């Protein structure tokens, strides 16, 4: 048996032992409780738009009724039990408790990579990648393709079959009898419908890459996307990151408040001067058409210092972000799962 395998076995046995011991001490280990609620609705006429209006009614008069389960604290469960032992309004939720344990065990499986690569890490990584990919595919379909594309091209069908909340225009693309050119909303609708039809054609052209022949067809919509994105980004970059930033750099050295003492004036303008010097020196460092000698070389060296300080600050922020994420996970393990701490007083 290798030393590494021995270490894994010892760590696992010690961990499971501690976990079992914790389960028999104090309040035990993480559980999730839920409270049952009921919703009973009946129709109460129709709105101006012709949609049915629903109101809450007693259960025996309801046209539609269902049960809701909302998460409550363990303290709420203890209080409900103390008030009425054996009550079934606040109960343990097995599915949510299993979810909590899965989250904790997957977190530990991911952390285990820090010791060495192992099957538990590989499994949790694969689950994460698979769930993420599936999630984004579903979101892309239901949030973009259905409401934005199919909802614009076939509004009546989409509203009737999959998305009742979709706003349907007065005109139907498939019934020219409903078209009214005198209506001020008609031409904007026509424009949008036409642009979505073009988007659909472009989408089909993009997928042509998967066909055995004619892959070049996908190049046309790709060219459109690249050109449009570059054009849009160029304008905003020039406006917000070049012009506005240059203006802000120049403004920053001007003393804005008249009547300041020399001391206040010095401290008031120092940050602006530092910014201006930093901008000029960093630009000198990136000036490759002139040799970095003399004044330019000196400025470039100052620029390097500015860059190093900037990278250091960025690294510091990154460390802060990563520690924050680690702290959140550790808090989850100690509080929600192991019930070792209770900072939010959810159990006491």
């Amino acid at each position, binding site marked *: 048996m290798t030393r590494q395998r021995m270490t894994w076995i010892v760590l696992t046995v010690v961990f499971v032992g501690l976990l079992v011991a914790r389960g028999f001490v104090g309040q035990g280990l993480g559980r999730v409780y839920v409270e049952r609620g009921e919703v009973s609705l009946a129709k109460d006429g129709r709105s101006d738009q012709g949609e049915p209006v629903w109101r809450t009614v007693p259960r025996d008069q309801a046209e539609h009724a269902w049960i809701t389960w909302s998460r409550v604290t363990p303290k709420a469960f203890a209080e409900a039990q103390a008030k009425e032992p054996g009550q079934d309004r606040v109960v343990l939720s097995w599915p949510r408790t299993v979810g909590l344990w899965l989250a904790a065990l997957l977190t530990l499986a991911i952390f285990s990579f820090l010791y060495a690569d192992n099957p538990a890490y590989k499994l949790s990584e694969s689950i994460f990648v698979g769930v993420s990919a599936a999630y984004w595919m579903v979101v892309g379909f239901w949030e973009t393709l259905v409401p934005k594309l199919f909802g614009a091209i076939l509004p009546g069908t989409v509203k009737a079959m999959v998305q009742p909340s979709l706003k349907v225009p007065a005109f139907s693309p498939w019934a020219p009898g409903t078209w009214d050119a005198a209506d001020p909303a008609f031409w904007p609708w026509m424009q949008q419908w036409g642009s979505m039809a073009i988007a659909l054609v472009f989408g089909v052209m993009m997928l042509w890459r998967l066909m055995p022949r004619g892959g070049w067809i996908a190049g046309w919509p790709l060219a459109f996307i690249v050109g449009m994105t570059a054009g849009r980004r160029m304008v*905003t970059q020039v406006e917000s990151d070049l012009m506005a930033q240059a203006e802000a750099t120049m403004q920053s050295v001007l003393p804005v408040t008249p009547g300041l003492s020399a001391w206040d004036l010095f401290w008031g303008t120092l940050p602006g001067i530092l910014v201006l010097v930093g901008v000029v020196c960093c630009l000198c460092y990136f000036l490759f058409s002139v040799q970095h000698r003399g004044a330019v070389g000196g400025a470039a060296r100052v620029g390097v210092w500015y860059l190093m300080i900037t990278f250091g600050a960025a690294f510091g922020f990154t460390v802060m972000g990563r520690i924050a994420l680690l702290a959140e996970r550790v808090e989850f393990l100690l509080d929600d799962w192991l019930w070792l701490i209770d900072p939010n007083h959810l159990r006491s």
Partner: protein
Amino acid sequence: MSVLGRLERLDRRWIFLAMFLVVSGPILYMGLTGKLFPEKVTATTQSVFDAVEAVPPGERVLFAFDFDPASAGELQPMATQLLRHCAARKLRVVCIALWPLGNNLAEDTITEVIHADFPQMRDGVDYVNLGFQAGQEQLMTLLTTNFRKGFPVDQRGRDTADLEILEGVRSVTDFPLLIDVGAGFPGSKEWVQYVVTGSGGKLRMVAGTTGVSTPQLIPYYPHQLAGILAGMKGAAEYESLVNAKIGGTPPPRYLEAQRRMGPQLFGHLLLVALIVLGNVIHFTRKARAAA
């Protein structure tokens, strides 16, 4: 083997273990005792607080939830306190999300803050969640010309034309303040580039950002961004400001960011010590080689 040699060949897993211990120790201690570190507020955080304070009561603010659970550990305390501050100021809050899961986090935040502590606020009148819309920066641009076209219905399927809170809103610049809690693309940077800069100063914006993305946003402060909550430190500072303003003993759930400053302190101390140690080893080795 000498101490220097041992340190040079130190298995990095000891460093991981040390980091785990210095992070979990303060969490355990602060979780058991409830003790917190005092916060000294920086200018960028104070500017966010002042920007929210400057909006008159009854005015609308637009609140964008552009993050997901992966960064909620850092950003959720900010979102909670920003919404709480707005509600305490009697501002009317319109929540939107440009990230799909931002919508769920907006719902959770509304439940945690408004339903729990401000039950008098009415859905559709004093606050509303318009949910997620796809489109990223194209959607941002659309909001500058036709807000309701960008969000035709709210999270509950109600027509936004019928919502009292959106009466008179034609574009995003009809809001005096935009609050964005963002973790990346699309987020605070895109709001500045596509919306705020082009508004000619009509729309003010404050941002709550992750530590990783803060350096990209600092250049926009204070001209294009009125204030920034920079990572967990910004969240803790803002939390202390809002708690001080509202007064009384805050519920423990409103001390989340300040609690997480304990692990930050010791984690940073460990990292500084490791950097110093690494440099000492490097220069000692260099001096020995030269000798």
